[in-house]
């Protein structure tokens, strides 16, 4: 798994290099372990593909980390390798943010922050009404937690609705380096009635153990992560690597130093 986590990061860089388009690089790197824990260890899938009735579901709230999702879906056999390099090209199914009409395995189109959690809450309630035991996992950015609609959804879920939902927050902000973030999340989420867990967001075992505890009811997981994880240059200056293209020299230098 560790080798694959390095390979996946370098694959993202390669996609950005070969496609010629910029990408939200450091934001993608902080969620690689979270997605791998979800798709390979925790989520239950039924039937063909990832969207069969009874399958657990995933909604990427921080839609700008689409490349992390696309590469995970590639490893799950949902996206062809050659299609990855059409990223952002006209007519491609893989754009800067994921689209439910175009990407197999994507149930919700995201990109504008704050939309995913309310939708995930509605999905969880729908499955509850139908007696389907699916758990909906959604992954939000800690800056995304600034959005008012997120807090409306947290209130609505706890007060009015039912279902199985786990909201994971990618806590990758470093205020000293200029990141958006939301302070005291654990206290706030607990005050809103959610069961809050916390773990190392780059430890697959810790993530798996924590997320498996969150398959019933309304849970929040604060995953402590590093923006740009795996590349010392990105970790040192994550905001410079927030959205940019990758040159051949960048790729060589970064991929040489990638380690988990």
């Amino acid at each position, binding site marked *: 798994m560790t080798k694959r986590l390095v390979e996946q990061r370098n694959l993202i860089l390669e996609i950005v290099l070969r496609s010629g388009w910029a990408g939200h690089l450091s934001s993608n790197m902080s969620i690689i372990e979270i997605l791998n824990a979800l798709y390979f260890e925790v989520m239950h899938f039924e039937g063909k593909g990832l969207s069969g009735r009874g399958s657990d579901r995933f909604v990427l709230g921080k839609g700008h980390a689409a490349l992390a999702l696309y590469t995970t879906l590639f490893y799950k056999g949902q996206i062809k390798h050659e299609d990855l390099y059409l990223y952002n090209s006209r007519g491609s199914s893989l754009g800067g943010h994921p689209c439910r009409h175009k990407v197999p395995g994507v149930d919700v189109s995201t990109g504008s922050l704050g939309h995913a959690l309310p939708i995930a*809450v509605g999905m969880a309630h*729908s499955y509850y009404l139908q007696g389907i035991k699916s758990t909906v996992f959604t992954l939000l950015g800690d800056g995304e937690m600034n959005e008012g*609609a997120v807090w409306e959804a947290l209130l609505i879920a706890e007060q009015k609705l039912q279902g199985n939902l786990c909201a994971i927050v990618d806590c990758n902000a470093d205020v000293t380096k200029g990141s958006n973030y939301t302070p005291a999340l654990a206290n706030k989420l607990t005050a809103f009635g959610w069961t809050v867990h916390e773990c190392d967001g780059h430890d697959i075992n810790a993530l798996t153990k924590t997320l498996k505890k969150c398959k019933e009811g309304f849970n929040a997981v604060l995953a402590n992560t590093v923006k740009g994880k795996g590349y010392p240059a990105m970790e040192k200056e994550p905001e410079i690597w927030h959205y940019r293209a990758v040159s051949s020299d960048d790729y060589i230098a970064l991929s040489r130093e990638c380690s988990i």
Partner: protein
Amino acid sequence: MNYMQRRFASITAKHLEGDSRLCLLFAGSGIVDQSYFDDISKECNGRIVDLGISEQAAIGVAAGLAVGGSIPVFHTQSPFIVERAYEQLKLDFGYQCLPGNFVGLGGSIEFTLLGPTHNCPADVGALKLIPNFEIIVPGTEDEFERLFEARLFSDYPTYYRLSRDLNSVSFDVEFGKAEIVKRGNHATIIAVGPMLQMVIEACEDLDVTILYYTTLAPFDSATLRDEFTGERLFVVEPFYCGALLADIASSLEGKVYEISEVALPIKFFDQYGLATEWNEPLGLTSQALRDKVVESIL
């Protein structure tokens, strides 16, 4: 409850009991009477929910219900559907093209006494700019019932504008299709929803074509193009002017005509009182319309 709202409530209650996919959602508005559903709320456990005064998340939840296979019906005052949560309508429903039913109370200036914060004369114009969104403006309770039944379980998001003011005559309206009320030679009049009453009173004996629209999106271009007569077009609509101009322009491309809108001007209506007290100053009376049409065709 107004008459059209009461019809909405009775149809929705019937379908809530008959189809477990249906979910009725409110957003904490005290003006929207939810007591109609008290008798069936227990039986529809979890499917009739007041999500509180959180319209953006509430519409997001409605979208999530649709993703999960449920059919949401969202009912509150029009400004809090259309304007408060516009991005949710645009992205969660329009872009994702999810099924949903949005039933708005108090479009235009029906609640003018409450001031501009509770008015929504921009609803149709704003929703016209969201691709995939259907817009229905019925003129009677019977027309509402026909159109609501037609689209309730469709694959598209649909906005239904409830009206307090009603026409005295109902048509067997079809979704997406304009009605030809009468044919004439000297002018064409588009009447939208509850404005038909005024148009018929004004123009019944005039040699004009009257087309009646209850579906505004998708817009029936073919009927307008085929039935357009004379060189004058009047658009009589119960919302801000301009909402239908793009559709009209594309329907009548290549034709030369003069166009007049009888509609609400784009301004804030902050004088309170009753909505009907605005009719005369805005020229929204049958006499004012008749004078305008007669002057143009003489």
